[in-house]
């Protein structure tokens, strides 16, 4: 596998796994964070509420 591709793949896997695990841990510590996010999302897309 070419070095650049291997590096890029490694970077993506690292960011995805560590990012996902730590952010999920944060959301579990403060469930309101996900609620705020959902609220913000529905506010920016009002039709999603209907």
């Amino acid at each position, binding site marked *: 596998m070419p070095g650049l591709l*291997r*590096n890029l*793949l*490694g*970077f*993506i*896997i*690292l*960011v*995805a*796994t*560590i*990012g*996902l*695990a*730590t*952010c*999920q*841990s*944060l*959301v*579990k*510590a*403060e469930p309101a964070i996900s609620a705020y996010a959902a609220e913000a999302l529905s506010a920016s897309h009002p039709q999603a509420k209907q």
Partner: protein
Amino acid sequence: MNQLEKLKQSVSDALHPYSPRGLLLYFLPIALIPATFIALGKGHMLDVLINAAGFALYMLAAWSLRRGLQAEYACAKSRIGSPPPKPLKTIAAAVTALATGMIAWLGAEHALPVALMFAGAAFLGMYLRYGLDPEERQKISAAYGYSGDEIRKALQGSSRIIRNIEQANDRIRNTELNKRIERICQVADNILAEIAADPRDFRRARKFLNVYLDGVLQVTQGYAKTHQQSHSGELEQNFRNVLDTIETVFQEQRQKLFEEDVFDLDVKIEVLNTQLKQEGIL
């Protein structure tokens, strides 16, 4: 190596400790800091411990990775380098996998098999992004009663002497002499590389390594020191003569080493010593 290449090399060496490679691991787990404080605010001590321990493990992995990358650079740069004594990059990958698995299992409350998959993916990511530690050190086989390690140590000592000669050469302000010394160092490096590849030559080259390289170091350091204090044309000429002799002998010895001829060093060493004394350098 010309001046520009030398400058580039020394800038690259000086900047390497500040290279951003490996810093990613310091920033990725940043979400664990608010997670720890939120858990603390809510009085969930177990979550505080899990998040804080995860963060500490990531920091340990990042530190280990940076040290491993620096050791790897130093090893690759040295001509007779031995890999770092501890597998720091592998340790960093294992600690990252452990931290990720632990955070996924206890922090994000995934099932154990899922957490194990997180750990495996983190290890794979570390392997692909940074690689593991260099393979087992380049083997130097035992020869003529010397063990491989003894030969390696002797070669590393000689390599250090060559680096000292190069440093002394940097203090000499004479392009012609600089080039001569660089050529001598190059031949000496080649001889070391040849001995590392085929240690049967070590016995024959041992005196050469001990005596000649020390001799070159002494005269180069001596000249670098004295020529800054007084600029004497005679001293410069004497130094040039000695370098001439040394360069010729180095070339000859390398050729003989290559041809598997017998080293006739005893005679050469006497000749060199006599010349150094005559020229007033020793």
